[in-house]
């Protein structure tokens, strides 16, 4: 039983890796403008879009133009979604007659889908219509993922061995991310899900009579397509309230594997794409190695702890042969749920197939750490950008250690780049710790807010988790937190915007500045960034800068809970 579960996990991990390498090569070809697989099908579609919109996809942009295009287009999507959500009650395609959203909830929801986070303070069955699910949420799940990929593509371009301001065309990268990667893969995944029982229908609620004779209303909808892009785009926003724990979103162990692979595949493939694109495959393997080391360091303890079950229950003399099953689905099991809980937090999906609130305390800590570091694979496109910032910091320190002023990919790292990298690195702890501090202060001094379902250390973890999830643009919830209140909707909304766009603006600016610098060829004295030693350095920087800043907070939350068992 246990061996089968572990085997399932290995299949998921190595299956993803095997698929991610060729996908990465294809992505590199697409961004490099080389001939690729889908040219005959998608070429005409892309040309139509560019002719229709009047965009000259051949015109190369500098990094500032890239940012301008990226931010404007995101602003428009935000406004559109706000409109849809606040008016969904009377808009068409609302078979279940769900109401429009309140302004603060619409703000939180629109922001959270624009920024690829999908923090959901509503439940899909009752809070959204099919129209807003498809033209609001699902639309944003595609374009927000493509935004991250397009930003990463510009960084790839900027790191080539030359000096230039021209870094490709944002719209070209953006559209091709959709037509060549996200859309085709989504079709494949959606079809697999549909065959496994996930609904894809325009019809409203179905009603069935259960064995007990009760009549039950079952929510349906265009779920399969939604769930496909929810994972491929590392969005994580569920069609239904309980996300991938819902039997129609994730019906079986097989769909669990499909969804797992589809959320991991693009973040992994982007790393290999970087290697193929820059013709530095060894560097890509170094980055992959660092990410995987971090990922395993978090995932393995989680699986072990979840499989072993709660010591408190053991003490009662109750057998837990199938592991800690509180808040988990029988059809998925403890091991696969433990594995999923780390996959969904290291990458910014945030879809859940079990209650993270019910994880063992230190599993909960690992889920938090996964989002606090936010660089082990990470979200589509943005994961690479996050790790890029850590690499810049690591290059600076280790460059000094070999006796040269630091260089990365033949470009000198100077004061300006350091400043930007640090602002980005600083933002994450600031958002998480300041947000949690304000909430902790609020609840301590006015218990009437009453948004905590649990007192003490666990309640603290719930608040910490919510801000961490928002800052990492993850979107999963610890739950147990009454989060549909103006305070949580607005404060997490602000955290979402800042934590999405500054970590995109920063790396783009650094890459843009580096691209303009003189290219210095490598010599024997140059720091090699594709070695294991440098990998250790990057890992060390992530562990000490990103993880250790949260040590006191974690001590008061999950660690205190663990030791109190």
């Amino acid at each position, binding site marked *: 039983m246990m061996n089968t579960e572990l085997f399932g996990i290995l299949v998921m991990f190595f299956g993803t890796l095997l698929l991610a390498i060729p996908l990465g090569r294809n992505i590199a070809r697409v961004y490099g403008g080389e001939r690729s697989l889908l040219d005959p099908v998608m070429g005409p579609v892309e040309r139509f879009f560019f002719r229709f919109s009047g965009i000259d996809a051949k015109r190369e942009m500098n990094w500032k133009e890239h940012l301008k295009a990226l931010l404007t287009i995101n602003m428009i999507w935000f406004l559109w979604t706000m409109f849809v959500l606040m008016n969904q009650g009377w808009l068409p395609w609302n078979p279940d007659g769900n109401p429009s959203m309140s302004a603060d909830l619409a703000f939180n929801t629109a922001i959270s889908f624009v920024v690829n986070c999908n923090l959901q303070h509503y439940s899909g069955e009752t809070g959204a219509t099919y129209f807003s699910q498809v033209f609001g949420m699902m639309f944003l799940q595609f374009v927000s993922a493509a935004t991250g990929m397009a930003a990463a593509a510009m960084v790839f371009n900027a790191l080539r061995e030359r000096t230039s301001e021209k870094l490709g065309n944002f719209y070209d990268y953006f559209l091709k991310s959709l037509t060549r990667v996200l859309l085709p893969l989504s079709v494949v995944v959606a079809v697999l899900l549909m065959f496994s029982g996930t609904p894809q229908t325009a019809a409203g609620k179905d009603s069935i009579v259960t064995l007990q004779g009760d009549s039950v209303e079952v929510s349906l909808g265009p779920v399969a397509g939604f769930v496909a892009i929810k994972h491929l785009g590392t969005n994580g926003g569920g069609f239904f309230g309980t996300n991938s724990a819902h039997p129609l979103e994730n019906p079986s162990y097989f769909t669990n594997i499909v969804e797992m692979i589809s959320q991991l595949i693009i973040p992994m493939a982007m790393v290999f794409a970087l290697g193929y694109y820059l013709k530095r495959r060894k560097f890509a393997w170094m980055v992959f190695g660092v990410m995987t080391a971090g990922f395993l360091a978090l995932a393995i303890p989680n699986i072990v702890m979840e499989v072993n079950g709660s010591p408190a229950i053991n003490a009662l003399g109750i057998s837990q042969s199938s592991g800690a099953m509180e808040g988990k689905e029988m059809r998925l099991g403890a091991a696969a749920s433990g594995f999923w809980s780390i996959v969904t937090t290291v990458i910014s999906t945030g879809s859940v197939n079990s209650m993270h609130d019910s994880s063992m305390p230190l599993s909960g800590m690992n889920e938090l750490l996964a989002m606090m570091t936010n660089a082990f694979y990470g979200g589509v496109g943005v994961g690479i950008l996050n790790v890029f910032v850590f690499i810049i910091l690591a290059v600076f*320190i280790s460059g000094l250690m*070999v006796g040269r002023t630091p260089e990365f990919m*033949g470009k000198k*790292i*100077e004061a300006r780049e350091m400043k930007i990298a640090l602002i980005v690195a600083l933002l994450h702890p600031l958002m998480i710790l300041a947000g*949690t501090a304000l909430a902790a202060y609020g609840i301590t001094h006015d218990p009437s807010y009453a948004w905590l379902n649990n007192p003490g*250390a666990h309640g603290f973890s719930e608040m910490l988790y919510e801000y961490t999830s928002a800052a990492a643009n993850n979107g999963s919830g610890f739950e147990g937190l009454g989060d549909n209140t103006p305070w949580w909707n607005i404060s997490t909304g602000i955290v979402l915007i800042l934590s999405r766009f500054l970590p995109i603006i920063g790396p783009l600016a650094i890459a843009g500045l580096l691209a303009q610098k003189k290219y210095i060829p490598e010599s024997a004295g140059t720091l090699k960034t594709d070695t294991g030693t440098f990998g250790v350095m990057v890992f060390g920087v992530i562990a000490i800068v990103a993880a250790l800043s949260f040590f006191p907070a974690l001590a008061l939350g999950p660690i205190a809970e663990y*030791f109190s068992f």
Partner: protein
Amino acid sequence: MKNQQPTSLFQRDLVMEAIKQSFVKLDPRIMVRNPVMFTVEVGTAVMLVVSLWLLFSGDASQGSLGYNITIFLLLLLTLLFANFAEGIAEARGKAQADSLRRTREDTPAKLKLADGSVKLIRSNELRKGDLFYCEAGDLIPSDGEIIEGLASIDESAITGESAPVIREGGGDRSSVTGGTRVLSDHITVKVTGEPGSSFLDRMIALVEGASRQKTPNEIALTILLAGFTLIFIIVCVTLQPFAGYANATVSIAALISLFVCLIPTTIGGLLSAIGIAGMDRALRANVISKSGKAVETAGDIDVLLLDKTGTITIGNRKATAFFPAPGVDRSTFIRSCALSSIADETAEGKSILELAGPDVTKGLSLEGAALIPFTAQTRTSGVDLPNGQRIRKGAQDALRKLTLQAGFTAPAEVEAEVKRIAENGGTPLVVAENERITGCIELQDIIKPGIRERFERLRKMGVKTVMVTGDNPLTAKYIAEKAGVDDFIAEATPEDKMAYIKKEQQTGRLVAMMGDGTNDAPALAQADVGVAMNSGTQAAKEAGNMVDLDNDPTKLIEVVEIGKQLLMTRGTLTTFSIANDVAKYFAIVPALFMASIPALGALNIMGLHSPESAILSAVIFNALIIPALIPLALRGVAYKPIGASALLRRNLLIYGLGGLIVPFIGIKAIDLAVSLFI
């Protein structure tokens, strides 16, 4: 000067001066230049206020008065240690520079007036453009250029070399340095700089805090450290409401202690000392750097242009054989070789006379002859005798052109001989009489022992070595291969050097070169690091960004290592400082919460005695590590040419892993001692 070097890092008088400076530098206006230590100063001030409050109010919520005062004193000590590090580095640099300067402050100068008379004034009254006169026994009062005369000069005060050197007007050896002594003859010297603007004055100013500017890399590192400091400000400020939620009381002393321990005080406190020590090390190697940036850039050098003569080969070439052309009488040929060399002051010229022997040279006279000096353009020199004989000697191609222009042909036997000499690493010198080639002289180079190994070392550092020589390509190739340089520029003119530097710079490489002549000045200015020899002309010294007092061409190699050491010391201490945080977290975080959340006592993996002792131990460790690392900061981390990857592995192991482990041991040991008193 070498004999004046302090042998110990901490000389008594320097330590006294540094201690004084430790207190002077507490001035917040000075402190604010270093953001890391400035925040420590703010924390110290807060602790002072808290301690005073406790003293007068008797409030007990913040822990005992003694405990708070102890924390205050420890933080103050941290600041003083950091200031002391900077102070001692400054004091050492200043002592070094002062000993150079002292010699000439009150030197009398013999000012030459317009009418030719001499007036005795003090050296600091000399102005740029003034002429002064020096004779045997005089100390030269100021840097300058000889405009008349020749003298042997003892430069040991500056270079430590006891052998006197010859300086004379109108060449590349016309420059004299203040503080050196004339041993024989007399010279008239023109002052080349205003008082206070000599290289030494600039160097002293660099070492002293006032005009010291941060180098670009230092600025970037300061930003990094300031960033870390900000992160830990966030961590500590938010801890207060967190603790409030958990019903834990965290005292101000504990919070500030956590903050000071987490921010990178070790590197923050030592950063400026490292920079000053880098310049000081250059000075100890007898290289005066005009800016801190130049030392830093030296570590990045990719290409090193080295003159063959003196760097790769010992001294100068020596004439080893005469080869008259067919049909030319051997003794006549030797005679004309000697005639053309009498006025030639170069070592080559002298060696030709030596080879010719006293029998030939005794009766020679240049009475009435016109001397044709060597120029880089004609690449020939010689003499026009009163009887109409025109003797020229020089590089083969130059003379070949000369003889072809005059309508003669170059004898094939001489061409063959020239080729043979060149292929064997010798330098052929062709001689012509009245534009007709009469034969050639063989000159041979001797490659310095050990130079091959040094180039190997440079190659491992990733530095490409380029030999610059006036030799023809064949000779140059032979010597280049024998010495193990990567590339060479043969028959180099100053324009060639310049072009080579520009070409390398265009591909993004940084180039260093050494030069002495006025015609080197443009290339010295173009190079990223230009080291001028002290014996060189004033123009060369102005153009370069370093001056080598020893006139030792191999010094470039040392300069590169000093630059690398400087950067490495910064990098390794930053790594060490940040790695220390892990242990400090494990000391302080359980101490903060153990009282209110007993379960967190499990995090006290070091088994520290009590919350108070844990915090005190961490703060004491944090303070003591600064003075413990001062010797390393001043001496620099040893550079090993083992390639970048191996170097990173080594330093990461020593300073990264070491930085993780050492504080666990240190804090535990201090805690054992502290617990005896609590």
